């Protein structure tokens, strides 16, 4: 599934899959919850 990505010249990622589960989870959780180095 991860093979299906394209990146344009300005870093925009395009994926074939309309919904990928991991990203769905991330969005449900409100996106990135880190504050810089706290993720470590």
């Amino acid at each position: 599934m991860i093979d299906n990505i394209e990146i344009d010249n300005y870093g925009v990622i395009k994926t074939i899959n309309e919904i990928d589960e991991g990203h769905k989870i991330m969005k449900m959780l409100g996106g990135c919850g880190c504050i810089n180095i706290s993720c470590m």
Partner: protein
Amino acid sequence: MIYNRNLRLDILPTEECNFRCVYCYENFKIKKMDDKVIEGIKNLILARSKTLKNLEINWFGGEPMLAYDVIKDIMEYSKYLSIRYNFKLTSSMTTNGSLLTIKKFKELYELYVRWFQISFDGDKDNHNKFRITREKTDTFDIIYNNILNLHKSNINSDIVIRLHLNKNNYQSIYNFIDRLSLDIGNDNRFKIFIRELSRLGGTNDKKLPVIDNQNEINYLLKKLRDRIKKSGLHIYKINNIEMCYAASMSQYLIRANGYIGKCTVALYDDKNIIGKINSDGTIIIDKDKLKYWIRGNFSNNIGELKCPLKYV
């Protein structure tokens, strides 16, 4: 699906620092960002502007305030583009706080840099053992005074005061909480975030008084958080499951030399050099390296989203 509506840039305008904190993992070799990289970032944002809904710029370093002119330059241009193309602009800064005068707090507020993270290692005695200047002088008073000046002002910026708990500073943090409570009270612009001291790859890692027992860490952090609440101070809350920005499909780290990465910690890991920005705003990305960081989006694996670097 095309991930073109949100863009998060974590920018290191310099990798030099005026501090030499004992636990720091950076080597300070790359100095201030040069004009070609600045031009590249501005052109990248311009190229993305037409489809953007949200642009988030986070300033990191080194000490970002040592390159204040770079920050101003990029933020002024981003503000102009956000008005012209009608996207939301937000910005934050992780800083040691030593150069944040009221004048600069005000200027940064106008440029949408309105969230700051500033670290302490306890009260004056302990803090000054860990966070010292490049010239080995104390830093507590200058940072604390800058914070007090913001408290006395009407600038509506948010400050996260980050505290590092180690084997020897529990009482010192406790005293610092009491000091903050007296000086800042329930000013809700200030939030407190406590975390245990960690080894992040610095040269002094082996000597650091890190608490290794997780039960002990949890017990001490709980006691300190209870003290914060009783003191009327506010705790900074983050999601229970922390998802790392480095796993995001719409985030890039831009180093002072123009290298593109993902993570602000593993700066010297080859996996974290995934490309380079050109002065015309185009970026060259190694697709295989990028896939490593964003793989959690496809695998449905929380660990890979939480910390793509650690979870191998």
